[in-house]
């Protein structure tokens, strides 16, 4: 049922190359989920998010410090390996300095015909953020129009909004099924779905989602749900890690990370000024820790609501090693979980996943959660 999503995830570059050959369109490789994909769809450009490969590489050290996060190091390795050479454009919206370094290395060593750095407000709750961001979008649109030679109309923007909103709403429908006592999908399957949405034409993804939603509610799986877990972190498409956890009689039923729910959770609400409407969506989405700068702890509230709704029994907090924004959040976030009666376990991710070392920790964590099953 999820084969199509898995196939897209595993063959993302082949997909993008075929898409280019088929449509003659341009591909924009982007970093960070604060990039307004609506505008790219309006311009008939295919946005694809830059991911790592979880393979060790010897191409990173000359570009990025060892104490920068493994994800950004992995991404730069992909670029230098030439795996994104088909990209016509590259852009980033400002979130963290580590990803900014990937963009800078890309710009210096493998510039494409369109390189774009989009400033993005950090204080997303400020009253000035929305007009600021809408103005940035306007500048961006002008740059894209110049690049593609095509004027972006209001109708184009509406089309972009519609494609994105539909994708978000369909994936939210799938997420509702994760709340069931016996969810018909695993966390790994869900990860394939959400990650692939950042890698392929969302119109095709939407078709696959519609097909999935017809079949998924009545799907009978032969596995037990076991312990209901939430996975929380930054970028975490660590399929091997998630498969290992779910092989130990547990299921990820909720997530908060930017390769999962955080990227698509809310939609653009219709408004006369399309750019203000899109800006509102990005400013009010479940924030990345780089954007959750006030003491309102918007992200924490959102995460707790998700955890409670999904009846989560334990939370696995995974962090890309050296990811400062998450590092700052984690102690308080763990306390928030524990105060709500949800035990947590913290793990640091690297480019490659040390399955054996993590397995013992996760097994012990699960044993702790189901301590009543052991005789004392």
């Amino acid at each position, binding site marked *: 049922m999820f084969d199509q999503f898995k196939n897209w995830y595993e063959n993302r570059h082949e997909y993008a190359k075929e898409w280019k050959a088929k449509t003659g369109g341009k591909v924009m490789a982007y970093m960070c989920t604060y990039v307004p994909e609506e505008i790219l769809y309006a311009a008939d450009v295919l946005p694809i998010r830059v991911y790592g490969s979880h393979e060790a590489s010897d191409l990173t050290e000359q570009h990025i410090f060892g104490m920068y996060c493994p994800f950004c190091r992995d991404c730069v390795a992909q670029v230098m390996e030439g795996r994104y050479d088909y990209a016509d454009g590259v852009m980033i919206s400002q979130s963290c300095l580590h990803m900014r370094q990937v963009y800078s290395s890309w710009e210096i060593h493998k510039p494409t015909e369109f390189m774009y750095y989009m400033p993005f407000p950090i204080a997303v709750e400020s009253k000035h953020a929305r007009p600021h961001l809408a103005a940035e979008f306007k500048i961006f649109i002008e740059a894209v129009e110049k690049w593609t030679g095509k004027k972006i109309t209001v109708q184009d923007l509406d089309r972009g909004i519609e494609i994105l909103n539909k994708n978000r709403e369909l994936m939210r429908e799938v997420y509702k099924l994760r709340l069931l006592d016996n969810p018909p999908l695993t966390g790994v399957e869900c990860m394939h779905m959400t990650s692939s949405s950042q890698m392929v034409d969302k119109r095709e993804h939407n078709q696959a989602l519609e097909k999935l939603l017809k079949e998924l509610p009545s799907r009978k799986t032969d596995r037990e749900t076991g312990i209901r877990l939430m996975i929380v972190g930054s970028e975490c498409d660590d399929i091997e890690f998630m498969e290992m956890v779910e092989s130990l009689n547990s299921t990820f039923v909720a997530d908060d990370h930017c390769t999962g729910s955080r990227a698509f959770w809310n939609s653009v609400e219709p408004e006369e000024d399309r750019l203000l409407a899109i800006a509102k969506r990005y400013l009010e989405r479940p924030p990345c820790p780089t954007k959750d700068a006030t003491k309102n702890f918007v992200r924490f509230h959102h995460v707790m609501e998700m955890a409670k709704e999904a009846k989560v029994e334990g939370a696995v907090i995974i962090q890309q090693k050296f990811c400062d924004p998450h590092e700052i959040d984690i102690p308080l976030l763990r306390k928030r979980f524990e105060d709500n009666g949800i035990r947590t376990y913290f793990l*640091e991710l690297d480019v490659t996943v040390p399955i054996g070392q993590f397995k013992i920790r996760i097994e012990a964590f699960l044993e702790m959660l189901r*301590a009543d099953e052991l005789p*004392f």
Partner: protein
Amino acid sequence: MAEEKKEYWRWLESRWTNPNINWRQAKIITGGVDVGSVSTQAVIMADGDLYAFANMRTGSDSPNSARNAFNWALEGTGMAETDVKYTVGTGYGRVNVPMAKKAITEIACHARGANFMYGPTVRTVLDMGGQDCKAIRIDDKGKVESFLMNDKCAAGTGRGMEVFSDLLTISINDVGKMSMEVDVEPEPVSSTCVIFAKTEATGLLRQGWAKNKVLAAYCRAMAGRVNELLQRVGVVKDFAITGGIAKNIGVVSRLENLLGLKALTPRHDTQLAGAIGAALFAKGLLEKDLKK
């Protein structure tokens, strides 16, 4: 002819039978096998009391290591493998213990074993194993409340100490004691990585440092490293240490100084904690099965 290289890191293997127990009179006989990265222990318990154990070096494959230790524990007892009604496997090779009906992590087993070895007052357990160390908070029954393990490097573990034993050509059994023979405590060497520490130690030897002073610097580094782990999990009295390094006075006394807390004195070989915990779980699981 080249001189045969002495392996200073090699610790003594051992086995023991409790002379006060007649296993034939026991109602429940269970086993626990802890296949660690460096050592393997097999424990036989009769009605929840320690009857026999074997403590050996782990070989290149886990099933054989488990089998060898188990057979050695049974040796001379007249007990057959079939007399052991339920065995639990633990340690990094826990899923490859041929005679085990169930695998339980060494975190849970060390917690349970520490409760048995040191009594119900233990709340913080430090397991200093061959290639990892764990700080575990437990309740009065030996149930895990929280735990932390070291990261990737073997600094702060038994393997690290073995590397130093070989480097300094001092038997592993003597390194702790020798490290105490210093008038002034030296600054610790690097605790980030065993190889860094070894490189630093080599430099110190070249500068003319005595071996015991280098050992003191390494034991202090190791104590500091595990202290950090303990502080992260939170130290609550009573405190106990399991694993091979618990036998190293050089590390233990320095750690006690850092903590301002004495570690409890063990009733049994500290390397047995995991296997004892496994055998106790085996007893509970067997009783559960028998009730069905």
